[in-house]
């Protein structure tokens, strides 16, 4: 498989990658996933897309160790996933912020659960908050923030624990379009700085093409890998006006042609 033309192409020396082998999952009589195989290279930005009911969120939760697979196996780095692990952080569609406490405490939460002492925790959280552009909002409560800002808190909390893998479940779905575009650029910037492996679940074709190295298309009922598309757009994309290029339009259209047959 040819590597995409990027300025930060993943190398075989990177220790963490994700391997999904023959994963199947049923909820009662509903077959959510059948025999799914995915390999994510270290440092790669991969999107999962498909019609609703294709099991893309279930697949993400299986990789996160939140949902056990019925059959098959997931490895993150050297670890066979049997539950949540330290390499992964999850970003949730509904942000999953603790409404009863401040931005600072929310961002500290993962560090707290992993047993870090108070002072270091506070410093790490403040750094993560600054990184996502929310410096000055440490003492605000989630309800006082806009949706976009709340998701920035969710991202800061995920980054604070220094994960090697970032698992994002439709993180921009409940954020308005203008805010979303700025946030996507910030995410790409952070990603190129921190060299994380990212798996993003989305239902937006533009989003998948704009952000990803590869897009995995899942077919619904039962969820299977339908097709995998390479996205050869040059990086960094966040500074150039990639969305306005003919190549971008062609790739989105190609993805649409694949998805349309699955509706």
């Amino acid at each position, binding site marked *: 498989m040819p590597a995409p033309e990027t300025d930060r192409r993943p190398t075989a020396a990177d220790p963490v990658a994700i391997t999904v082998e023959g994963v199947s999952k049923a909820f009662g009589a509903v077959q959510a996933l059948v025999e799914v195989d995915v390999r994510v290279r270290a440092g790669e930005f991969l999107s999962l897309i498909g019609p609703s009911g294709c099991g893309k969120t279930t697949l993400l*939760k299986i990789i*996160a*160790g*939140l949902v056990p697979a019925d059959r098959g196996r997931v490895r993150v780095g050297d670890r066979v996933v049997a539950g*949540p*692990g*330290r390499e*992964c*952080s*999850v970003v*949730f*569609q*509904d*942000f*999953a912020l*603790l*409404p*009863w*406490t401040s931005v600072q405490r929310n961002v500290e*939460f*993962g560090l*707290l*659960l*992993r047993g870090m002492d108070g002072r270091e925790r506070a410093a790490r959280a403040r750094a993560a908050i600054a990184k996502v552009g929310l410096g000055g909002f440490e003492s605000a*409560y989630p*309800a006082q923030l806009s949706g976009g800002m709340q998701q920035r808190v969710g991202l800061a909390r995920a980054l604070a*624990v220094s994960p090697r893998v970032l698992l994002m479940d439709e993180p921009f779905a409940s954020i308005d379009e203008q805010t979303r575009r700025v946030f996507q650029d910030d995410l790409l910037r952070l990603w190129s700085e921190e060299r994380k492996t990212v798996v993003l679940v989305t239902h937006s074709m533009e989003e998948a093409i704009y952000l990803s190295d590869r897009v995995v298309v899942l077919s619904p009922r039962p969820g299977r890998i339908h097709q995998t598309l390479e996205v050869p757009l040059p990086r960094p994309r966040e500074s150039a006006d990639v969305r306005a290029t003919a190549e971008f339009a062609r790739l989105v259209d190609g993805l649409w042609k694949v998805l349309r047959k699955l509706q």
Partner: protein
Amino acid sequence: MTLAALVGLAAGWELIGQLDVSMFVPPLSRVVATSWHLLGDGTLTRAAASSLLSLVKGFVPAVGLGVVVGLAMGRFAVVRYALDGWINALMSAPLSALVPILIALFGVRDTVVAAAVFMFSFFVIVVNTSTGVRSTERSLVDMARAFGAGEAALFGRIYLPAALPAIMLGLRLGVVQAVKGMVVGEMLISLVGLGERLIYYGNTFLITELYAVILLVLVLALLAGSLAQACDRALVRWK
């Protein structure tokens, strides 16, 4: 608005009382004066102190045990299936019907009043706590688990704070039930405290004194409710 309604009601009561329509409606001013007098000479103070002690002795364990049972029911389906039927039956049953059982268990001493307070307030606390736990956002639980939270951390850092508003609501409803339990216990079983005064004044047709005690019970219930509400506000500032 509430205040205006209360003033209107008081004025109406006073008017009917002054018109001397019935011996069962003495003027409010005379009732208040009698309350004051009975508190002053110690008659009601002693009764109220005894009642309050029973209230505390019954309500505190009801809160402690109620929250624990509610948390367990909310979190573990097995516990819920085991207890749900009982809790619902006992919550909707007329608890006064259980008086003979309480007498058999606790005799007619002061403790039986505390037991009645417990019986009246326990269930609403259990049900509210359990509901609060069950309505915890799924994604908050997933989030904590993704960061490696075990069962203890899930309880302490997610389920308990998420259920706190519902628990506090249970306490506010429960404290009102507790006052009812107190009066029922004192009137129907033990004949102590304010309940004993109600029976005594009722049987001797000292109507003004009877109203004076009723007024005191109402004030007590309102104070207990306000106290619970103040706790709620202090603990659940984020809502």
